């Protein structure tokens, strides 16, 4: 095979120089980038802390509704260690889901830092990191299982779970095997595996989500009401699955709407109210404190 015409495509133009154009100065480069200048990493963190949220603030400016502003978080501090399961509690609107989304960068933080320790041991401020680096972290180290069931359209159940594995660096073959194990574990019948996830019931979708989220356990897993749509038997199976994540060293930050799940899974509970941390401690203490605003089913 000869390729006679491919040798000189990078030769620069040797004729007259192009019309000299001025350099753009009207807008500083990348002024539209969401990331803020990162703060210095905290020096007082235990060396194994996976996630350390410092002074996190979040507000929304609704330009389509008179520029109205809504404040959600007013300076939240929170640490999660490997193998630790921190459950967020509090009434509806306390900022639990907002906090999870800020950590995942689905929401842009308004202030403070979200320090994440990578597998390589570096601390990265997710609140200030460039988009592409956040995207890489999501692919490999930070997982998110949402209560919102929005599976990718026209994709089979098996494919969704398998691709979650390959995205975390598993080989295709290994991911397929792991996907099958995970689907068994969350009790998705085999005849559903090649169906599009969009046609499943809410509970089935939720279990597919959790199977995908845990197939190759990330260093940090964010769970936003992952069992809200499940019947008791399936709920128990999924809770088992989450409980076993401790063994893999995965740090979990979760929102559950029921006390049983928190009591069973959490190593620590952080109670949010009005966008602030109201209390934190072991579930046995926190959940029995009747003075705390907990909107959970007992």
């Amino acid at each position: 095979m000869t390729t006679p015409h491919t040798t000189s495509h990078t030769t620069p133009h040797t004729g007259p120089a192009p019309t000299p154009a001025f350099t753009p100065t009207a807008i500083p480069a990348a002024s539209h980038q969401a990331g803020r200048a990162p703060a210095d990493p905290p020096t007082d963190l235990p060396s194994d802390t996976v996630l350390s949220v410092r002074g996190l603030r979040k507000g929304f400016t609704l330009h389509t509704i008179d520029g109205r502003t809504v404040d959600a978080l007013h300076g939240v501090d929170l640490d999660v260690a490997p193998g630790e399961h921190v459950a967020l509690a509090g009434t509806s609107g306390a900022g639990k889901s907002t906090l999870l989304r800020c950590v995942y960068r689905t929401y842009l933080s308004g202030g403070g830092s979200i320090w994440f320790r990578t597998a390589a041991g570096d601390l990265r401020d997710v609140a200030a990191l460039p988009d592409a680096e956040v995207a890489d972290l999501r692919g490999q180290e930070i997982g998110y299982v949402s209560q919102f069931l929005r599976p990718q359209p026209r994709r089979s159940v098996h494919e969704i779970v398998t691709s979650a594995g390959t995205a975390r660096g598993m080989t295709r073959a290994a991911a397929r095997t792991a996907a099958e194990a995970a689907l068994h574990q969350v009790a998705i019948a085999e005849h559903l595996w090649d169906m599009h996830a969009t046609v499943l019931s809410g509970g089935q979708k939720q279990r597919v989500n959790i199977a995908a989220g845990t197939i190759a356990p990330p260093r940090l897993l964010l769970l936003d009401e992952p069992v809200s749509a499940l019947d008791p038997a399936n709920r128990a199976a999924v809770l088992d699955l989450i409980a076993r994540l401790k063994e893999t060293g995965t740090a979990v930050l979760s929102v559950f709407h029921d006390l049983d799940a928190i009591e069973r899974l959490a190593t620590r509970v952080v109670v949010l109210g009005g966008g602030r941390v109201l209390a934190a401690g072991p579930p046995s203490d926190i959940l029995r404190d009747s003075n705390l605003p907990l909107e959970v089913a007992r």
Partner: protein
Amino acid sequence: MSTAATAPPTTSAPPTWALRTEGLGRIYGDPGPASLVGTGPDFGTEISPATGAVVAAWDVGFEVAPGEALGIIGESGSGKSTVMRCIAGDEQATAGTIALRGVGDGTVNIRDLSPTARRKLRLQQISAVYQDPAAGLNLDVTAGGNIADPLTAIGWRNYGSIRQRAAELLQRVEVPVGRMDDAVRTFSGGMRQRVQIAKALANDPPVLLLDEPTTGLDASVAAGVLDLLRHLLEETGIAAVVVSHDFGVIDLLTRRVLVMQHGRVVESGLTDQLLEDPQHPYSQQLVAAARG
């Protein structure tokens, strides 16, 4: 080859990105600084009040990594397609830098290359898929013949090998190989778009530009083409830029997105962040409209 000779000596490793633009601009009319004044989102126009020039795009900068898809969203006239055409070389940018990792390890501003050199980049470095299949295909030529074009352009001279490669590519884009010898004119809109994609992938380019790739197709047909593109983007490790006015397309195909209005980038972010927590008033409007 000539790349080494023209690139400044560098000791740094090749960049991690496959495509990078910085300060990219395209002005129709007087390209002087006076044309910029009074244009952009703050002024609600891309037309210079002083010179009448159209600032179709200005100060557009981004990087796309191999295996990553970046979206550019905005309404008609926002400059998103202009940016794509400037990168593809269909138009000459007025200002800025366009660099490809595959050209001098990213040290060459391909905007400075001659039109001839730019065209040659289209063979193996950058491919484009246009909204209108007629822009990327010769409709009177067979599907196989359209794919043979970029192959023969880089020196394929074996008929059997060309056909084998064309059949592989058609299989990849899910066009029945039995239709390989039919003129593309006899194909449906969705099939034409698949052939255009196959042609774009023929020489395994590291960068793929998609300009409204499913606009104009029936919804069900568009869905099929989108699924195909999603699979290809996931599997190939190609760096893609997806230009669309449709958040559904951007959501499905990309992980990062730029929002353009009146020729400027008003916001950039992770695609889900743009959809869930848009910052700029215009982005919020777009999302609100998309959400119904």
